[in-house]
């Protein structure tokens, strides 16, 4: 055990717990448990909003899998990662003000609330709830595995004990604190990541004897590492560009991101979040992936790609600093897991249980149920992570792509196209998910269809299906209801 590394980590975890407890107190004084637990009563300012988006999105894939891939593939992977800069401004501008106004009016606290009220359809709600539960659950397990690996490589504990520690801390934290706690720690974590990646990048460049030296070494080892095409020339420009859909613009449809676009306090905080979000997301993605590439000459021959960042940090930094900086990926994973866990449990509690099983559940009951369901889902994730699937990043991306294919058009067209209706939404979700799964397995067996990432084709298929079915079963144009026109089940 390396205590100089572990102590800063422990301090970090302790701070996170204090925030959870503080949030829990604050929640006790709030008038609405559901709204506070799941979206923090819509009172977040710009910094918190930006950071919680960044931290949720910048998950294990960007902190371990991403730099690990950059380590073996080279600068081409950094190029690919930079498609994510768009998430900083695109989500907030597209969902932006209209989503905020409409969800407030609907009193929606989840993406599914919005879809349910926009399309007035049980099938839409059920399909979305089930896809959120399945896909986000698999994303969450990937993060869970990543968290355990990280603790394992830092402490030398066995995988299962590391997993156990990670699960316990996440669970206690989320079940007591809710969204407010998650968003607040996201902010701290975002700040740690921002400075952490910068320090680590500088340390790696210094350890490698400067950029010129490092690039000369890379060129000498394999010139492909400094091209946009990957170490074997395997990244075509079409393939890399298709990531604009998966990790750039498609992110708009991820429920964990969309829910954050309901939680801002006012226009001012949204504007500030746009600015901060773009800077932070771009900065962290650029640094983190660059570290992966530049670490190659410094620390050659790392076999498990996910361990590149922890190993490099331990190699090039003094132990205490490494501990603080490794709190960043751990933080990233915790915050992603936290918010995914919350979303899955909100789908179960809010979208299924309260909507269809017991609309008149009282506050205390809802509270116990929310915490209980969150806990149970966490335990299941723990059990599944004991025998983890191989490649973290791809499992994670599978979930992202599936959700994007399912939700992008029902969300975006539901918001902006008045002829969007439930037939279009249902058909598009079914077509999106099934073509996504189909193409996923096709691509695994025969290589990428048309040379693009798995999500690309389903996104176009679901668009066409959406428009076609909406027009086929054409209904009255939909106008968002004005004040006091909807009958709300819980008022």
């Amino acid at each position, binding site marked *: 055990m390396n205590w100089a590394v572990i102590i800063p980590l422990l301090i970090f975890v302790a701070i996170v717990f204090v925030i959870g407890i503080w949030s829990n107190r604050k929640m006790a004084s709030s008038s609405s448990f559901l709204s506070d637990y799941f979206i923090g009563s819509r009172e977040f300012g710009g910094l918190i909003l930006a950071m919680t988006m960044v931290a949720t999105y910048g998950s294990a894939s960007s902190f371990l899998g991403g730099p690990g891939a950059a380590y073996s593939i080279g600068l081409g992977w950094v190029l690919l990662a930079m498609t994510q800069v768009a998430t900083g401004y695109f989500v907030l501008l597209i969902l932006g003000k209209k989503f905020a106004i409409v969800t407030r009016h609907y009193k929606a606290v989840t993406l599914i609330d919005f879809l349910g009220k926009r399309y007035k359809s049980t099938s839409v709600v059920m399909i979305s709830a089930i896809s959120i539960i399945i896909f986000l659950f698999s994303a969450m397990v990937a993060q869970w595995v990543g968290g355990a690996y990280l603790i394992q490589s830092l402490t030398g504990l066995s995988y299962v004990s590391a997993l156990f520690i990670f699960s316990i801390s996440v669970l206690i934290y989320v079940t007591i604190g809710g969204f407010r706690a998650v968003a607040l720690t996201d902010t701290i974590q975002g700040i740690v990541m921002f400075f952490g990646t910068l320090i680590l990048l500088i340390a790696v460049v210094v350890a490698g004897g400067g950029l010129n030296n490092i690039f000369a070494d890379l060129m000498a080892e394999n010139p492909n590492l400094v091209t946009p095409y990957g170490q074997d020339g395997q990244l075509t420009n079409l393939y890399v560009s298709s990531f604009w859909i998966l990790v750039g613009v498609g992110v708009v449809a991820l429920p964990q991101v969309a829910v954050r676009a309901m939680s801002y306090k006012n*226009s001012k905080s949204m504007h500030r979040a746009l600015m901060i979000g773009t800077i932070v997301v771009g900065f962290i993605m650029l640094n983190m992936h660059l570290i992966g590439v530049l670490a190659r000459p410094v620390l050659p021959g790392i076999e498990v790609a996910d361990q590149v960042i922890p190993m490099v940090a331990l190699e090039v930094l003094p132990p205490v600093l490494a501990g603080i900086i490794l709190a960043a990926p751990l933080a990233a994973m915790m915050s992603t897991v936290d918010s995914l866990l919350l979303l899955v449990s909100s789908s179960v509690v809010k979208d299924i249980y309260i909507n269809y099983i017991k609309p008149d559940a009282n506050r205390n009951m809802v509270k116990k149920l929310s915490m209980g369901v969150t806990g149970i889902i966490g335990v299941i994730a723990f059990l599944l992570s004991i025998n983890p699937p191989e490649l973290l990043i791809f499992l994670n991306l599978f979930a992202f792509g599936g959700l994007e294919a399912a939700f992008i058009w029902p969300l975006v067209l539901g918001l902006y196209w008045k002829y969007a209706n439930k037939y279009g939404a249902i058909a598009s979700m079914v077509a999106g998910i099934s073509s996504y799964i189909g193409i996923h397995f096709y691509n695994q067996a025969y290589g990428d269809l048309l040379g693009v990432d798995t999500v690309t084709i389903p996104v176009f298929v679901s668009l066409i299906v959406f428009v076609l079915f909406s027009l086929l079963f054409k209904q009255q144009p939909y106008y968002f209801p004005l004040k006091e026109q909807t009958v709300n089940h819980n008022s």
Partner: protein
Amino acid sequence: MSQSAKEDKRFKIAHREALIGCGLAVFNIIWWYGFAYGFGSKSPDEYTFILGFPAWFFYSCIVGFIVMVILVWGVVKFALVEVSFGDEEDESDEVKSA
């Protein structure tokens, strides 16, 4: 007062800002793609290096990021309009689970 006129006005602003978002993304993609594959597709031996980085990477990823930050700043500062999100009074009328 005419509630619908107010809604329409807010939505109009929102629609305009969504279009700005699309515009930014299109610009971002063109910049990113143009420099990466414009400068990066020759043989690595012929690469020029700027501040230690290969030119394609420097312009596409580093300068491109800075340009986007400046553009987003400009949009936030000059193009976005502040509107109220609530249904006027009773801002805090969240879901009550009682």
